[in-house]
């Protein structure tokens, strides 16, 4: 046991550099996750905010989360591959990103898809559940719909929206190891390659790296959330755990393990 851990420690000293080193792969993972989450945010936040402002399709928010939970992330990533390969075969060689349809392209598409539901649902619900009285008062004072959305609803919904971003980011980072299955060079590579050659040390080291990144992401976003959201609006200050569990937000605040 101790010997094994010793081997793992040694592994860490030997495999840090180069394109296949863990530093490079760490960077690849972060790059991929950040891009997927940000792109998803750019689409989901405006959409969610607009739909939430007009208070339509309430059922859809819960439905989106439920469907999102039922989709296996493994399946989504795998499904992306034949799709991206087909797309890439129509794109001339040399265009970046698309490449051969493997690697970054399918990984990005899949993670982008997985990142959408939490951000959308949280933004939608957050905006929708802003006290109607406040909105009505703003309208009565003469604010335009757009201004209401920008200056009243979104700021008041910001705790929930940021929570959605956190959930999404954590989910994306947690699912990213599977990207190795579509030939992406992230941290997951160590685990997947380790499985095929049955190298326990590599498997364990890879698992350690992935786990640490995931936990770190969760903690940093949690910290960020606490810093960005003004005290009285903080989610933890508002609800008791029991009430939180009973509202719809119980289904929103739990990330989907990959």
């Amino acid at each position, binding site marked *: 046991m101790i010997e094994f851990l010793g081997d793992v420690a040694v592994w860490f000293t030997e495999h840090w550099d180069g394109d296949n080193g863990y530093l490079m792969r760490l960077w690849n993972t972060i790059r991929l996750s950040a891009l997927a989450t940000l792109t998803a945010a750019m689409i989901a936040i405006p959409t969610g905010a607009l739909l939430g402002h007009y208070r339509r399709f309430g059922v859809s928010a819960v439905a989106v989360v439920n469907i999102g939970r039922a989709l296996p992330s493994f399946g989504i990533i795998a499904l992306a591959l034949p799709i991206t390969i087909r797309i890439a075969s129509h794109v001339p060689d040399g265009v970046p990103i698309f490449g051969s349809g*493997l690697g970054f392209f399918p990984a990005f598409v899949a993670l982008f898809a997985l990142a959408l539901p939490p951000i959308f649902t949280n933004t939608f619900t957050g905006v929708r559940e802003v006290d109607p009285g406040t909105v009505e008062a703003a309208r009565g004072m003469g604010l335009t719909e757009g201004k209401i959305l920008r200056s009243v609803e979104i700021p008041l919904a910001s705790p929930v929206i940021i929570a959605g971003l956190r959930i999404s980011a954590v989910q994306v980072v*947690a699912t990213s190891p599977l990207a190795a299955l579509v030939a992406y060079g992230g941290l997951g590579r160590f*685990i997947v390659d380790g499985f095929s050659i049955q190298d326990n040390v590599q498997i364990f080291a890879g*698992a350690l790296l992935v*786990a640490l990144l995931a936990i770190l992401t969760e903690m940093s976003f949690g910290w960020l959330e606490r810093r960005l959201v003004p005290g009285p609006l903080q989610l933890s200050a508002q609800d008791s755990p029991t009430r939180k569990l009973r509202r719809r937000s119980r289904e929103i605040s739990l990330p989907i393990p990959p």
Partner: protein
Amino acid sequence: MIAQADSSDAFVRWDWIWGHLDLIWEKVVEHLVLTGIALGVGLAMSLVLSGIVLRWRRTYAPITWATGIAYSIPSLALFAFLVPITGFTILTAQIGLVSYTLLILIRNIVAGIDGVDPAVREAAVGMGYSRRRLFFRIELPLALPVIIAGLRIAGVTTIGLVTVTALIGQGGVGFFILRGLNRFFSTEIVLGTLLSVILAVSLDLALLGAERVLTPWSRRQGDAS
């Protein structure tokens, strides 16, 4: 790595699916067995741990912390941690799967019991219910809706996770996803994913139906003036 052409032109080859129904059934059963074991063991463990939490409140924080850590670790990494210890076996898969159910189930069981109307509890104790009978005859039945809600989430999540276990030699319908990936056979990938979704939705609906059956009192609302 050079992309190879798909082994066929169609995205989904239904004739292939039709021709492999036996294999499909085998994998579906395997999937359900893996899920069933995980949920069963997870529920049992969660009931015990919840019992501890309800009796000694101070344990709630550490228990939530521990199960929360397990929940934060990406599933692939969790299985990877276990492989050097327990190999590519069902045990490895189950340890991982069960760990993911604990957080949500414990939270829901505790919240469900806490949510029982204090007046009901006071009336029951005042009438002469012992601690044990109170828990099993009053608190647990009334906490059922919240507990089943937790089971639904845990169940759907577990079904998705079982697909990942294909990477450590188990898999259920994840078998098709993995094989389709390796052979560049999109039909299998679609099949595996679709089956997983169908199983998840079916389990969700089945549990919802179970809740309806087990809690006839929550449906009826009178004039309660």
